[in-house]
């Protein structure tokens, strides 16, 4: 017992240390999110939050469930591998509007008539984006000089965008 005779101040200090450690554990319990460390040194719930974002491009499989007639036309032409929204733009809003299933972004289902019938792209601008001749493009890619090829006439006067060969019948 004589060993600890003058050691009271050490025990008080040790007690203080233990107390501080307990306080640290309690604070840590409340401050660190529950999912931190679920997969690694980060908040696991963040993955689900990022994954919950609403989709804006519906994907061509979705388009084809209703517009199978256009899909069939496209399948046999040179644009078979160009997906719908590459030209028509993001149309998940249109899908949600038509299906009435917009659980993700309720604001998009508002009475916006453009969601009922999306605006057709202007072929004179749209087609030129890809098909304007430039030395920088791969050699095998079909390119035309807008000034000499069509002089401002909309492309769909002669070419049907879904199956653009002239022999495919042009505009319908």
């Amino acid at each position, binding site marked *: 017992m004589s060993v600890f005779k003058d050691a009271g101040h050490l025990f008080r200090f040790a007690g203080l240390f233990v107390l501080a450690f307990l306080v640290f554990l309690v604070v840590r319990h409340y401050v660190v999110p529950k999912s*931190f460390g679920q*997969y*690694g*040194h*980060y*908040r696991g719930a*963040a*993955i689900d*939050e*990022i*994954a*919950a*974002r*609403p*989709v*804006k*491009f519906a*994907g*061509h499989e979705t388009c084809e469930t209703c517009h199978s007639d256009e899909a069939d036309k496209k399948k046999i032409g040179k*644009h078979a*591998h*160009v*997906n719908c*929204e*590459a030209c028509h*733009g*993001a149309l998940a809003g249109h899908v949600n509007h038509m299906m009435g299933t917009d659980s993700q972004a309720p604001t998009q289902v508002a009475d916006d008539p453009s969601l009922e019938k999306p605006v057709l792209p202007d072929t004179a601008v749209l087609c030129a*984006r*890809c098909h*304007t*001749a*430039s*030395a*920088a*493009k*791969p050699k095998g*890619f079909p390119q035309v000089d807008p000034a000499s090829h069509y002089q401002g006439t909309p492309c769909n006067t002669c070419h049907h965008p879904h199956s653009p060969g002239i022999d495919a019948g042009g505009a319908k």
Partner: protein
Amino acid sequence: MKISRRQMLILLPAAAVAWESVMAGTPEDAPNYKMTDHWWGMLIDISKCIGCGNCVRACQTENDVPDGFFRTWVERYHVSDEDMTEPEVISPDGGKEGFPVAQQDDKKYFFVPKLCNHCADSPCTQVCPVGATFISPDGVVLVDQKYCLGCAYCVQACPYGCRYIHPEKKVADKCTLCKHRLVKGLTTACCEVCPTGARQLADLKDPNDPIHAFLKTHSVQVLKPQMATGAKIFYNDLDGSVR
């Protein structure tokens, strides 16, 4: 019908277990996306890119990327055959509205689409002081924007310049490989709209993914392999002048 006490004791927990499985079995509550079944990357075929800018526009639409910032962008290289260390590179507004018409001269031209390389061993995730950026179990490098302090260490650490500080949120922002689309079985917005198939999403853990056959039969490279970042964006026909 008379049920004895013994039968009741067996029936009650059995019913509880059955009810539990009925409640858990609804497909909406249990999406069939399992992170450990995937390891995402992308294949970019330089010889197919026409520099139309569809990917850049689609990415900005899909992910609300602010003007002047890019999660993906396209560069146009103009390289002489004598000095490939000094390529002339342009990317007007990230290539969002395409590129000026090029006239053929004695140098070669090609387009290089760029985005986060979703590195398996990325410097950007290693420098984060708070654990706000990480690679998810399916191989996508993400930012936890609720946790991010906006210190921009990761922006400096990325060897590919793929991160930026969001001008309004003041936190790090970057390509998520359209994680919100992947979990729904969709491809990324940039791959969806690429008209020539120059960009193709690839699941390296899926043995049936065409990426495996492609990697076996083509000379494929990643950007800055000397950085040993484990980049998962594979470039076909990549020129040595690309930095």
